[in-house]
């Protein structure tokens, strides 16, 4: 499914289709279920009361080939799990309209987080989720929220099946105290080009050095394709964002990340970049076990990762700081006013990299207030 194209032309990559579709019986006639069925007319489809059968036991890879369409029970909104004690937090909220992702990045934390329920899910009751957001925004009109859908799922990779963006973008376009972030490694932007974001939507891409994308991000689009998609949504009125996360200390990382920065920002209007984040690879014991169990594994497990205060392993601090500083230096050459932040790092690292360690709300404020 990898697409490699000339960055100057653009055509959509081959879109993901599941091996089978599992629909919760009570949701069979929901708009989302009907859309999925209409767009996958030949798919092997099960309509069932018992979705546990959709979970493929211990095979995470098999889970990614099954699409489950179901009602979500419980809250849609959560505080970003990156807001761990001891880390500077950007007060980000995540809104889960599905879980798991069709891509197969070797380092992905979902391998441990969703190990017991890996089937790829989309939720039918989108209106309930948006009502929850609406209540929050109305309760705090003085605050501006950053809310993203790309934490437990790729925000756009299934948009050709669900049209979820067609509900989210108009909803946020009509609000004044929130920014929606759609985070992706895909180039599924066709729906976005037909919508008017009213400056309330940031479409962001997780990006990496080309060598890491090739070796560790199976199924995703190439860096060039992500940039081409970013240029198109930017031209259509969206702000864009980029997340260099996870930064991986591999042979040639300086050249790799510098090249990535040049490829990305060479084609974009940097004044319309909402934010760029940097985050070092984080590894837990369970994620390490999941990576060990993969049929092929790259250099992730042999990197020099050491335990941090939050129990996650990262490359040792001096090297992380060096990586952050280099990337920030190159990013500031591109545009010194681009809003930048680092993810899941303690105040000490912020101080070394930026010269100060802002309070949590201050980070969020800087990001939403940085550019008109």
């Amino acid at each position, binding site marked *: 499914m990898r697409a490699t194209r000339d960055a100057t032309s653009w055509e959509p990559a081959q879109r993901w289709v599941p091996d089978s579709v599992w629909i919760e019986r009570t949701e069979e006639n929901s708009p989302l279920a009907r859309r999925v069925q209409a767009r996958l007319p030949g798919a092997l489809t099960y309509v069932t009361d018992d979705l546990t059968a959709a979970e493929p036991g211990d095979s995470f890879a098999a889970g990614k080939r099954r699409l489950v369409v179901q009602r979500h029970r419980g809250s849609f909104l959560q505080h970003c799990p990156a807001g761990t004690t001891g880390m500077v937090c950007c007060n980000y909220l995540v809104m889960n309209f599905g879980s798991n992702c069709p891509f197969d990045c070797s380092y992905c934390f979902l391998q441990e987080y969703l190990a017991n329920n890996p089937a790829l899910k989309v939720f039918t009751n989108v209106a309930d989720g948006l009502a929850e957001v609406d209540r929050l925004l109305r309760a705090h009109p003085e605050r501006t929220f950053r809310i993203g859908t790309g934490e437990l799922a790729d925000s756009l990779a299934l948009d050709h099946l669900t049209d979820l963006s067609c509900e989210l973008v108009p909803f946020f376009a009509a609000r004044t105290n929130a920014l929606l972030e759609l985070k992706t490694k895909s180039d599924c932007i066709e729906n976005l080009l037909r919508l008017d974001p009213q400056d309330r939507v940031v479409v962001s891409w997780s990006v990496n050095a080309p060598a890491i994308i090739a070796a560790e991000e199976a199924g995703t689009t190439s860096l060039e394709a992500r940039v081409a998609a970013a240029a198109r949504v930017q031209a259509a009125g969206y702000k864009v964002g980029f997340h260099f996360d996870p930064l991986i200390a591999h042979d040639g990382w300086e050249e790799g990340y510098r090249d990535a920065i040049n490829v990305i920002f060479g084609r974009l209007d940097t004044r319309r970049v909402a934010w760029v984040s940097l985050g070092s690879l984080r590894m837990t014991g369970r994620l390490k076990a999941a990576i060990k169990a993969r049929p092929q594994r790259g250099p992730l497990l042999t990197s020099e990762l050491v335990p941090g205060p939050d129990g996650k392993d990262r490359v040792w601090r001096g090297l992380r700081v060096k990586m952050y500083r280099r990337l920030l230096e190159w990013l500031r050459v591109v545009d010194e006013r681009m809003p930048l932040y680092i993810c899941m790092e303690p105040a000490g690292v912020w101080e*070394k990299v930026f010269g100060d360690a802002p309070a949590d709300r201050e980070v969020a404020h800087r990001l939403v207030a940085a550019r008109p």
Partner: protein
Amino acid sequence: MIESDVETAIRAYAGTRMYSAATVERWLRLAARDAGALLQLATELRLGENQLRDLWDWAEEIGERDGLALSQVFAAPPIAAARGRALGRNDKLKAIKAALRCLRYPQLAAVEGRLAELVRTLQLPRSVRVTLPEHLEGDQLRVEIAADSVAAWRAAAAALLAAADTPACAALFALLDEAP
């Protein structure tokens, strides 16, 4: 394929140390030479399960990175040298672990070595102890003074003040600040 006598020996050793079944199964899945090398190390150091697993994981990661079998990692010169030292069991385990760590984290170990060298260059008296942050995951040195008199206190403080003005001290903090 592990020969039955090696398998028997592994099961017997693991049984006496009450290893979990999962660890034994993992052990028995190794190539015969690697399983034997691990058994030899375990027996030599009377390793408990967690101790064995720590050494094993590092050795496996070194092997994966450098394209070596587990038995080759355990026979690598720094490990062989540590194993050959005339030390008690605990000190030998520490020495082997330190040697293995240097192989597993070569950049980190090199920086730690350089930092230790810089601390020595400061020529601080024995009453002053400088401790580096663990895994260098922190940017603060810990400096402790032991004093049993005002004079000893003054001497230690004077040595620290003098050291603060040396290039070695500046280099120490520069190296803690960012990887070379």
